[in-house]
């Protein structure tokens, strides 16, 4: 689906965020990008989305540029617009006719469990609900590739787990390709099929771990075993 190869990125202030970063995400995969804070995960995700240009290396998409859905670390909603208008934004920008856009937005909100909140403004919603609107917005344009930047980092554990399960469900139903940035070992071990571990800055991939199937609950032995393995790889990456 998307391949980054030999990526380097240096910011104008002299910070070398990434150096020789390469990885691929196949069609339909759910991949986690895991690394310590400040290692360049957000930068890598923005490069993948084409919001930043690399200094060196290439970002290639196998079959044309896919429609991308992007979920930021915070909800990034328009405070002046209700949930419906927020979820509809991608369609409005693509000049989809109003009625069709409305229907898509309503459907997207319903899928993230927000039916009945179409007319609520962001300030009237809880943190978790705002994050759901943000996900609904990413889904509204029917993306092939969903990029998420620590979407649940600011939420409590209960909400985080629920939203994680919802995300898994959406991924299975839609045949989405998901690249999920996180700093949580347990989240990556449960949600994804593959975990990419990054070193501290300048970031690059040090381990590419394919996870065994059978992780159907957060506490199943296979999941716990995966966690142990990922933790080990992460510790090696940080020490290196």
């Amino acid at each position: 689906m998307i391949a980054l190869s030999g990526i380097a990125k240096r910011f104008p202030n002299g910070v070398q965020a990434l150096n020789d970063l390469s990885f691929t995400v196949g069609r339909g995969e759910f991949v986690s990008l895991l690394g310590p804070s400040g290692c360049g995960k957000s930068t890598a995700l923005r490069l993948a989305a084409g919001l930043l240009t690399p200094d060196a290396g290439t970002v290639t998409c196998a079959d044309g540029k896919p429609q991308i859905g992007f979920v930021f670390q915070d909800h990034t909603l328009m405070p002046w617009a209700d949930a419906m208008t927020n979820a509809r934004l991608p369609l409005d920008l693509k000049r989809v006719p109003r009625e069709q856009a409305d229907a898509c937005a309503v459907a997207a909100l319903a899928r993230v469990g927000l039916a009945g909140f179409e007319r609520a403004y962001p300030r009237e919603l809880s943190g978790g609900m705002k994050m759901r609107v943000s996900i609904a917005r990413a889904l509204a344009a029917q993306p092939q590739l969903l990029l998420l930047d620590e979407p649940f980092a600011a939420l409590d554990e209960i909400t985080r787990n629920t939203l994680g399960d919802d995300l898994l469900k959406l991924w299975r139903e839609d045949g989405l390709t998901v690249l999920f940035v996180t700093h949580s070992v347990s989240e990556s071990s449960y949600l994804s099929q593959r975990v990419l571990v990054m070193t501290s800055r300048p970031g690059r991939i040090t381990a590419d771990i394919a996870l065994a199937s059978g992780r159907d609950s957060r506490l199943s032995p296979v999941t716990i075993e995966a966690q142990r393995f990922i933790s080990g790889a992460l510790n090696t990456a940080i020490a290196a």
Partner: protein
Amino acid sequence: MRRLADFLLPLAVAAFLLGAWEAAVAHWQVPAYVLPAPSAIARAFADNFGSLMEALASTLAVTLEAFVAACVLGIATATAFSQSRLLERTLYPYAVILQVTPVVAIAPLILIWVGFERINLALVIIATIVAFFPILAGATLGLKSADFNLIDLTRLYGASRLQTLWRIRLPNALPYLLSGMKTAGGLALIGAVVAEFVAGSGTATGLAWRIVESGNRLEIATLFAALALLALTGVMIFAALSFLEWWLLRRWHESAISAS
């Protein structure tokens, strides 16, 4: 209940002060050409009602025209600035120069250039210069302070600059713009009054001119009546713009929500 108190308490204070004023003038027998009693001012107001209202209409027209002109010019300039950093860097210093130069100093020049036969246009231009800057500053800040991530999101969906401006930047600028407009409303009135003062006798017909004229004739009660009318106009403009601000922001902006 709270709102009623907000209204009644200042009113009670006003009644008390007016009563004390009336009593003090009567007690010390202050001459009317120094400080007229409120009752005398009220009488002067009633006697000159027609001409005062005409003067008010004239000043108000200049103020409103200048305010609208300042809004249009300020928003247009800020929008142009938001689209081109180069343009902003080139022209912003001139906007600042216009702002910091005392308008009384440029007013005579404008009057001469525009000509006394088009006095109203000259007054509107002077008042517009005074009211322009807060709108430009508010709109510029608002257009620039939109969430970068939100702007990036519009790029992901291939939005045009116009779409980003219309869907993200302008709504984001609204609170800043309205706050600038509240300041500008008062400044437009001040600008109109200053312009009338500078224009001087025979030409201007507004409230400021009534104040100068009444002062020259030592009709201090009429002067006070005109002054009170001017203050009331200022308050009404501020109230109207505050209401507009609350109404437009009531669903989403913290400032309007805490006030309701």
